[in-house]
């Protein structure tokens, strides 16, 4: 018991002496990935290192956002093609044999309704892509799932709970454009994770530069361990 008090006392003295040393390091001091990329102001980017002006509701005061990723922009191609087809298709309405028999006001409102449907598809596609994001801060990873307009799920896990990070790039287009999936295995059951699963994990789909995302998370795990060793844990 006495040795415990002695150790606590010693650690207090130690903390006083090394106060300056225990300041948190800047991300560029320990991360090659942060150093490698320039910061961007573009709110529509799919891969952004230390994005300017980004903040999350659950973020702590001195927590820094290091990475924002969305699905690769090419994954939007499917719905963009559908929208383009829907935009040009009213040009061919007049070919339909019964079209002339429809009163003009019904024709007019029909075309407006058609374009509203197109606008709805565009809005859903865009908002699903824009709000479905994955964020890495210096303390945790946050996965914001925005599958459709009536479903959203926000999952976060502390960096020190991450056990393993793997990434997969599969297929010709993903290999060529450098995008793929990153799987992050965490210890125990985390927030928002399926309790039935034996190995709780987070998965980021179609992320640009998956190797860099995995590398940054690994760098953060190492930094977190270093912080524990040096007593810089918040």
């Amino acid at each position, binding site marked *: 018991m006495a040795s415990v008090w002695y150790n606590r006392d010693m650690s207090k003295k130690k903390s006083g002496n090394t106060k300056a040393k225990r300041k948190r390091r800047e991300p560029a001091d320990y991360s090659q990935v942060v150093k490698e990329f320039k910061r961007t102001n573009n709110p529509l980017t799919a891969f952004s290192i230390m994005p300017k*002006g980004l903040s*999350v509701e659950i973020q702590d005061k001195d927590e820094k956002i290091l990475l924002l990723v969305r699905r690769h922009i090419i994954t939007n191609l499917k719905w963009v093609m559908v929208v383009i087809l829907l935009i040009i298709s009213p040009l061919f309405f007049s070919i339909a044999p019964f079209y002339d028999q429809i009163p003009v006001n*019904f024709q007019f409102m029909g075309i*407006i309704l058609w374009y509203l449907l197109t606008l709805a598809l565009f*809005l859903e596609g865009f908002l699903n892509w824009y709000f479905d994001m994955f964020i890495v801060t210096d303390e945790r990873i946050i996965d914001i799932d925005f599958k459709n307009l*009536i479903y*959203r799920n926000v999952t976060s896990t502390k960096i020190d709970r991450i056990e393993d990070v793997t990434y997969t790039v599969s297929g010709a287009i993903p290999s060529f454009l450098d995008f793929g999936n990153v799987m992050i295995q965490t210890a125990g059951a985390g927030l928002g994770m399926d309790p039935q699963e034996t190995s709780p994990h987070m998965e980021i789909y179609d992320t640009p530069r998956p190797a860099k995302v995995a590398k940054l998370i690994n760098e953060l795990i190492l930094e977190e361990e270093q912080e524990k060793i040096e007593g810089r844990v918040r």
Partner: protein
Amino acid sequence: MIDIEQLLSVQSLWLVIKVGYLIAFLLYVLFAVVVMAQVKQMTKTIDAGMNGKLLVASRLHLLFAVGLFVLALVVL
């Protein structure tokens, strides 16, 4: 000689189509309300640099949808 029964059936057909159109426009107004609510909620959760623009756009979109519903009532 115009067949009254035939005329009535054609008129009631267009009435049914008109109601269908109005229901479709009304559904779009509901969709616009859902979009606005979700954008509002998501911009509270995260600020990714376009929050102001998205909020304004979602409100204008709702106004636009209501305007088109009124236009459909007038035109049809």
